[in-house]
């Protein structure tokens, strides 16, 4: 199984590298289009959040596989002052410093799971996942079951 990839985020130029690394891993894992683009776009937003609000941090890309699914986990972490109100930060209209609320809310819509852990002592960690069933029919059954 493929190893995790770490991209350190210190300036806006590192966003380009983080996007490219995310897209490459998504393609290697077998994600169909347009998923690699959705993943790269979500990575871009969480990486920019680090650059603009904190200055530096790290993006870790981790593949995961189980019997039914394959997927990619993106963990964006920084040691900044934390996000005061996460609910507010994820609201569409929230504009924080430089209108990044829209970015986080949008990233959440591009991925399947999205969690933020944040406090003033340890900084902020955004964990987001995108996954696919190996069997597309199983996915549709699961979706129908969830909706019922």
């Amino acid at each position, binding site marked *: 199984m493929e190893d995790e990839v770490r991209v350190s985020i210190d300036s806006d130029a590192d966003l380009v590298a983080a996007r490219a690394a995310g897209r490459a891993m998504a393609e290697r894992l077998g994600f169909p289009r347009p998923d690699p683009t959705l993943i*790269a776009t979500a990575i*871009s*937003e969480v990486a920019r959040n680090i650059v603009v609000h904190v200055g530096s941090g790290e993006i870790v890309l981790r593949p995961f596989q189980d019997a039914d699914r394959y997927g990619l986990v993106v963990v964006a972490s920084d040691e900044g002052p934390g996000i005061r109100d996460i609910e507010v930060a994820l609201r569409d209209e929230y504009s924080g410093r430089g209108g990044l609320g829209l970015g986080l809310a*949008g990233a959440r819509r591009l991925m399947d799971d999205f969690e933020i852990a944040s406090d003033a002592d340890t900084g902020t960690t955004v964990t987001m996942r995108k996954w696919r069933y190996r069997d597309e029919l199983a996915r549709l059954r699961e979706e129908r079951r969830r909706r019922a």
Partner: protein
Amino acid sequence: MSVAILRQGTYLIASIQSDLSDREVLELRHQLSELVGSYSTRGIVIDVAALDVIDSFVARSMRSIVLTAKLRGAETVIVGIQPDVAIAMVQFRLNLEPLRVALDLDAAIASLDRLTRRDAVDGG
């Protein structure tokens, strides 16, 4: 350079050559607003086919370029948004107003021809 800017009559054609950093996006905005004045530009085409990510920052910068150019008397058409990028932008729910788009360069030029002619009529 990651953006080639060509002049064709009263139009500027900015062709993005590779994925851009935020800084390069801001540079493009600055360059275009300068050039609009120097060549009495009536229209701008921005070819984004080389961008494989258009996120909130790029979308916001495009809006800003369009609005800035308009204040300088020029219309802007975005051309070449990749199909996967278009899907991502919709799912992201990026605000696309007031972006005007075209599928290819010919369509973009035709669109600018229409827009600038209409301006001339409106303006008397």
